[in-house]
Each structure stands twice: as structure tokens, then as C-alpha cells.
């Protein structure tokens, strides 16, 4: 394999990690509420701006990360309390419309507060520099993205598999009514799922800013939609599927740009969403998803 291809694979792995981090939260919320959360991508933006603010205060790196994660979780909780919980039990489409409204509200609030001008993201000293790994060259940010994503996925696995909340979440995803019947605290579990998923997205926002160097109020929109594509690719509602889909999408996107003539690279986003429509045609349940049973 040529060095060029290896380099592209590394880039794909980096991008795929970011998509996976966002897609996980998307999938978590979907699996419980059957709700597509349009505002999920915007929490990435919230995380990036929280990082900007925390960095301006000048704390150690772990404090910045803590602030980002906390603000993401809080934003997720706020979204659930303000827009999702009051509307629970209404038709499914009401939920989409509500999350869309939340997304528009968050984006425009950020526009008012920070203006639409992109801001440079101060990459900390810690993350600067490059490493030579055999034939490929990796920036430190790339490695931090990939490795910390794997670590977080491991943490998530433990939480979902073995913690009380994880068990409750799986019960809810399986059958919300039955879970309530056997005494699972539905409200708290849903809130926890929102907090957890949003914290992941906010952390992805920090990484996104560090990797691409700038942040703006609308930065979360495209990654949010792509995270949904990743979920569909992996199988909507399956956590493993979201991760797999995220990595496949990241790789496919990077290879699309890297292997085709430069004239096509402007078509990158068209490729992703055209792929979504084709995917829905030929593989509607994704790679790991199960067909949704129909309930009367």
C-alpha cells in the first residue's frame, strides 16, 4: 500500500472518529425515543464555543475538557427539559419539528451572541506538532482524536453494558412501556441519555475546533446531518452501528476526495447525501440494524 493511501486512511480514521462521537449520541436518543434530534449537531457547536470560552479563561487542558463536557451535558439536559419532555406522547412528527426549532433557535442565538464571523480556535501547545509514523505523518491532534475516541467508546460500552443507567437505557430502547411497568425511572433515564449523548457531541466540537482551526455558529449543522447518515449506514438505533457507520462514512468521504481528481472534491457533500438516498433504497436497515417491527 502506498504511503499516500495510508495517509488517506489515517485522515479517514480521524474524520470517522469525529462522526462516530456525534453519531453515538444521535443513536442513543433515537433508540430510546425514536426521535431524530436535529439539534444534536448544534451541540457540537456549543462544545466548540465552550472550549473557546474556557481557553480564554486560561485553565489547564483537563479543566477545558471538563468545562466542554459539562456544558454539553447541561445543554442536552436543557433541550430535553424545554422541548422534548413537554411534547412526549404527541405524534412523532411533532418531535422532529420541535428539535428542528431548537436547532434554529440555538444557531440563531449563537449568531446573535458571536456573529457569523468564523473565529480562530487557539490550538493549545499540547496539540501542536507532527509525528512521523513510518511513511505517514500524523499531527498530534489526529492521534488525540483517534485515541480519545476509542477510550470514550470503551467507557460508553462499560456504561451501557454494566451500569444501572445503561441497563435502564437498554430496557427503554427495547420497550418503553414495559420498562416503566417494571419500575425504570423513564424521565431520568431519558434525561441521562440526552446528557450523555450531548456531552459526546460537545467533546467532538472541541476536537473539531482543534483539528480544523476555526469555529462558527453554523459549524454543527453539516456534521450533525452526516452523523445521521452514519447512523443509517450502520443501522439506525444500533450503537455499534453508529460507530461503524461513522468510521465508514469518514473513510468514504476522505477517499472520495483523495482518490478522485480534484475537480470532484467540491462535490463531497453531494456525494454523502446522495449516498444516503441510495442507501435508503438498497439497504434501509443499515449494516447492523434490524428491521423495525410494526406496532399497531
Amino acid at each position: 500500500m502506498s504511503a499516500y493511501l495510508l495517509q488517506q486512511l489515517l485522515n479517514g480514521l480521524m474524520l470517522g472518529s469525529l462522526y462516530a462521537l456525534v453519531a453515538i449520541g444521535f443513536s442513543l436518543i433515537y433508540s430510546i425515543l425514536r426521535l431524530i434530534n436535529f439539534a444534536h449537531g448544534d451541540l457540537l457547536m456549543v462544545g466548540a464555543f465552550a472550549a473557546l470560552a474556557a481557553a480564554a479563561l486560561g485553565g489547564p487542558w483537563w479543566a477545558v475538557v471538563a468545562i466542554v463536557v459539562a456544558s454539553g451535558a447541561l445543554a442536552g439536559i436543557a433541550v430535553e427539559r424545554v422541548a422534548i419532555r413537554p411534547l412526549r406522547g404527541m405524534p412523532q412528527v411533532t418531535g422532529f419539528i420541535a428539535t428542528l426549532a431548537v436547532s434554529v433557535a440555538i444557531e440563531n442565538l449563537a449568531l446573535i451572541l458571536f456573529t457569523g464571523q468564523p473565529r480562530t480556535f487557539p490550538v493549545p501547545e499540547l496539540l501542536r506538532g507532527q509525528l512521523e509514523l513510518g511513511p505517514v505523518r500524523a499531527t498530534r491532534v489526529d492521534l488525540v482524536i483517534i485515541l480519545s475516541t476509542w477510550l470514550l467508546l470503551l467507557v460508553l460500552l462499560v456504561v451501557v453494558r454494566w451500569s444501572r443507567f445503561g441497563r435502564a437505557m437498554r430496557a427503554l430502547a427495547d420497550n418503553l412501556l414495559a420498562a416503566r411497568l417494571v419500575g425504570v425511572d423513564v424521565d431520568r433515564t431519558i434525561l441521562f441519555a440526552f446528557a450523555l449523548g450531548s456531552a459526546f457531541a460537545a467533546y467532538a466540537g472541541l476536537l473539531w475546533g482543534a483539528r480544523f482551526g476555526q469555529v462558527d455558529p453554523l459549524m454543527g449543522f453539516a456534521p450533525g446531518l452526516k452523523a445521521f447518515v452514519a447512523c443509517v449506514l450502520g443501522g439506525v438505533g444500533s450503537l455499534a452501528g453508529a460507530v461503524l457507520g461513522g468510521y465508514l462514512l469518514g473513510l468514504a468521504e476522505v477517499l472520495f476526495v483523495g482518490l478522485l481528481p480534484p475537480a470532484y472534491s467540491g462535490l463531497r457533500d453531494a456525494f454523502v447525501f446522495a449516498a444516503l438516498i441510495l442507501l435508503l433504497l438498497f439497504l434501509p436497515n443499515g449494516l447492523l440494524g434490524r428491521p423495525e417491527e410494526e406496532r399497531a
Partner: protein
Amino acid sequence: MRGAAAHLLLALALAALVALVQRALSPYAVTLLSLVLMQVALAVSLQVTNGLTGLFSLGHPAFMTVGAYVSAILTYPVRRKGFMMPDLPPVLAESEWALVPAVLVAALAAALLALVVGLSVLRLKGHYLAVATLGLIIVVRTLVNNLDGYTRGGLGLSGVPRLTDPWTVYAFVVLVWYLCWRIKHSSYGRAMMAMRENELAARSTGVDVLALQLFAFVFGAAVAGAAGALTVHLVSVVTPGAYGIPLAFTLVVMVVIGGQGSLTGAALAAVLVALASEALRPLEESLELYGLSQALVAVALLLMLRFRPQGLFGSREPGLLVGGSNLGGSSSACPSPARTTPRAVSAGTAPSTPDAPRS
């Protein structure tokens, strides 16, 4: 007959308004009126796609973009085509179409695109359509941006002939209203509302859900394509991002505020939202708080969903427009599934002619 008379009166009153504005007010007011009327047409057509069927399409801006570019390219002056769109095939490069055929082709192109997307996405349960149509907006924008030999890419197409005036827009709104009204009050419309209320029940009484959803989606796309085409001939310029996600959101807001399935509600909400955001614009600019009006609209929508989820009108139309002989009462045009007659619900599978006009 009362309903028809009321409709006629409404159309005449609107015509009087257009004439008055054109006579007495500034060109700005005339443009504003045309754009508001266009939003009314878009919102009413989205009411058929989304409100009657319970689907959630965000695709109108994508179809408008397609319609706008198709019509702009077809009607562009031949002598400037070689310079502006060097890659056009000779057939197109050497012809200059008139307005009506160009708009029809634009609507057809949008409808075809909707057919392809609809066939792929509508077989799945509801929620995929929202994201797929949102993605479609991005696909269309990216393609238009990159096919610069046909579209001038990010520069946008300017100098498109101004072939429409407020009266064209007026005629279009009246036509769209008429079509949507007839659809809603036909057996198809009742079958759509039945499947929105309970898909399984509707299916078991013989409603062909997929066919109806596809019809509603393609119909909305055709209207949006024509609207995009007419708008481009009104303002004479179009850019790849002219019709984007904010517009998709605004249209959804109009449908929700108006009430899922109410054409009158959508039209009223379109006027309200369009005028409100126009009124807020100077405030936004003087305070340099860009995004204020959108944020307010979003908050208003959330409040509406929470405290009055059925919108202003629910699924109903004002009694005056419906006329006296409407089924089951003066103001209710929303059949609950139980009330739908067997004939009405079987219409999905056996394409019969729509019911005779009810008024």
C-alpha cells in the same frame, strides 16, 4: 354554492389588493406583496405534502432551486448564453423559451426529482424523509455550485429576463389554492387525512398509502419548482444558496402554525410570518442582531407546539369557504377515520375521478 361564492369574492378581493398596491404604493411594496403571495403558494402546497399526509418533507427549497435554474437557463437570452453558460448543449444554447413552457418544464423537472427521491425514501417509515430532503437541499446546492458551465456556480445567474409581474404571481396563487382545495376535498384528500390519523387503519380499508404519499410529495415538488421558476423571473437573479434550510424551516413553521391540514391556516400563517420577519428586519439591522427574527420564530413555534399543537385552525377551513353542504357540519372538513365513507378510502387503489365539487 355559498362556498364557491365566498372563494370568488376572496379572489376578487385579492385582485383588488394587488391592483391597489400596484397603483398606490412603492415598487418595494409591490415586490413585497409578490413575495408574500409566493410564500402563501408555497405554504399551501406544503400543507398538501406535509399537513394532509403527516409526512415531514423539508425539500421545497431544493425543488425551488431546481425550478429556478431550469427556467432561468431555458429563457436566458441566446446572445449571452455562450458567455454565461459555455457548457450548454447546442439545442439549449440556441433556443430561448417563453415563460409558460419554461415554468412547466421547471415544475416537471422538480417533480421528476421528487419522484426519484420519493420512490427511494417513502417506502420507509416517516422519519427518513425529513433528513433525506434536508440532504437533498445540500445535494442540489452543491451540484449547482459545481456545474458552473451551466449555472455560473457560486456567482449565481443574474440578468434572467423579468417575465413575471404581480399578476402572474396572483394567477399562480389562485391556481395553487384551487388545486390544493380540490385535492383536500376530494376522496384522495380524505384518504390522506385518514392515513395521517392512523396508517394501519387506513391501509386496512384499502388506502394505497405509498401511492398517496408519493402523489402528495411529487405534487408539492411541482408547485415548488414552478414557484422557484416564477420567482427567478420576478427578481431576475438566483444563487445556489438562495433557497436553503432557513426557508425550509420557515415553511414548516407556517404549516404548523396554520394547523396541520388547514389551507386557510397555512395561507394566514404565511402572511403573518412573512410580514413579521419583514417588519423585524430593520430592527435586526439597527441593533446588529442578525438572526433575531429566526430565533423568535423558532421560539414561537416551540410555544405553539406546546400550548396549541393543533395550530390556528386544526385541520379545518373556515365555514364560509366550505359552504353549507359540507359533510357533517359547517366548519369541520376533517374526517376522523371512522367517518370516512368506504368510497372515499378506496379511491387510493381505484383511481376514480375526484368527487364532484362540494360547494
